């Protein structure tokens, strides 16, 4: 199954928008105004569609900022520390995320697809 395509289909249905408007670089919250109930539905739908276990905190990068604070307190390499907690993201993507934090919630469609692919590989 094409993970990105299926993820876009699911998002389009939950958020009631055209699939064509959704790209890998689209932000879930900044661009599509996804709310917490939408994210919950999304987690349930991804679990159902791909038959994988979803950890909501991981896939939605919920504890990104607290982990970043931890990394700073421990004087650890920030990217490496965050990748330990979000192993489905690449080093490049994590660097992008850190540069992008000021703009608001960083979660993009491609991150969801990355999570699904990682879960499929590791399960």
């Amino acid at each position, binding site marked *: 199954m094409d993970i990105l395509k299926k993820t876009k289909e699911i998002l389009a249905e939950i958020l009631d928008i055209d699939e064509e408007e959704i790209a890998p670089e689209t932000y879930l919250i900044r661009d599509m105004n996804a709310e917490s109930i939408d994210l919950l539905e999304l*987690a349930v739908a991804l679990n*159902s569609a791909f038959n994988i276990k979803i950890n909501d905190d991981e896939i939605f990068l919920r504890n990104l900022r607290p982990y970043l604070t931890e990394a700073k307190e421990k004087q650890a390499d920030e990217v490496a520390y965050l990748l330990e907690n979000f192993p489905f993201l690449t080093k490049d993507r994590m660097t992008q995320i850190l540069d992008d934090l000021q703009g608001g919630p960083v979660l993009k469609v491609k991150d969801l697809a990355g999570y699904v692919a990682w879960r499929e590989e590791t399960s």
Partner: protein
Amino acid sequence: MKLEFSGSRALILGGSCDLALYLAESMIKVNLLPILTYRDENDHKKISNILSSFAGKYETVYLDFADIASLDALFCKIKDDLDFMVDFAQGDIEGLIASANPDDISRYFEQNISFRAKILKKAGRAMLKKKKGRLVFISSSAAAKPNPGQGFYAAAKLASEALYKNLGLELGSRGITTVTLRPGYIDTGRGKAYMQGREKEVLRRVPTRKAITAQEVTDTVLFFLSKSAAGFNAVEIAMDGGLTAGK
């Protein structure tokens, strides 16, 4: 009034208590499929004995509020396929707050509040897949008006009511709704045991001077599960003959 239902699969927590078994019978008669939880073999046998004439029309599943693995196994067994849930489960504890054992307090709240929240998380997500679901929590008039010695019981009921209420608030837009029923003195189970030998004294406090019957409770729960009750959500309803309405 003929009741109609959206779906058929009904998980009954605390499935071996008398009220749950009455409800299971009533459900079978209206073509619902009760799935009753049991905590040990004795409970399992009780369910099998009482529902012996309904073989094949109900299911049983193990669930122990002290065993998180049993919760995962339950939802695996029922394949997340759930239309209704009715929650009778409640651990028994009675004692004055100032004399309680600290370990018992922690265990009681872990099992009767935290574990219930974990059940609601699982049930809510299972129902989200179907975009519909109805949950009924059986609370107690003790939530509003506890007797001395019922502090922990009342606290657990109130906390659980809050969880059910919020689930209905949070998922109502997705077709998943909740109702809490607060029965008063019931002439079965623990209520019957409590009233034994002091029925008149107990019922003098109830404006109707009557205990609630098991049939009345099960009829009411069935109504709350039906399409006719779709307007009720995130609400607590007293069914106590007026016990908690006055001073």
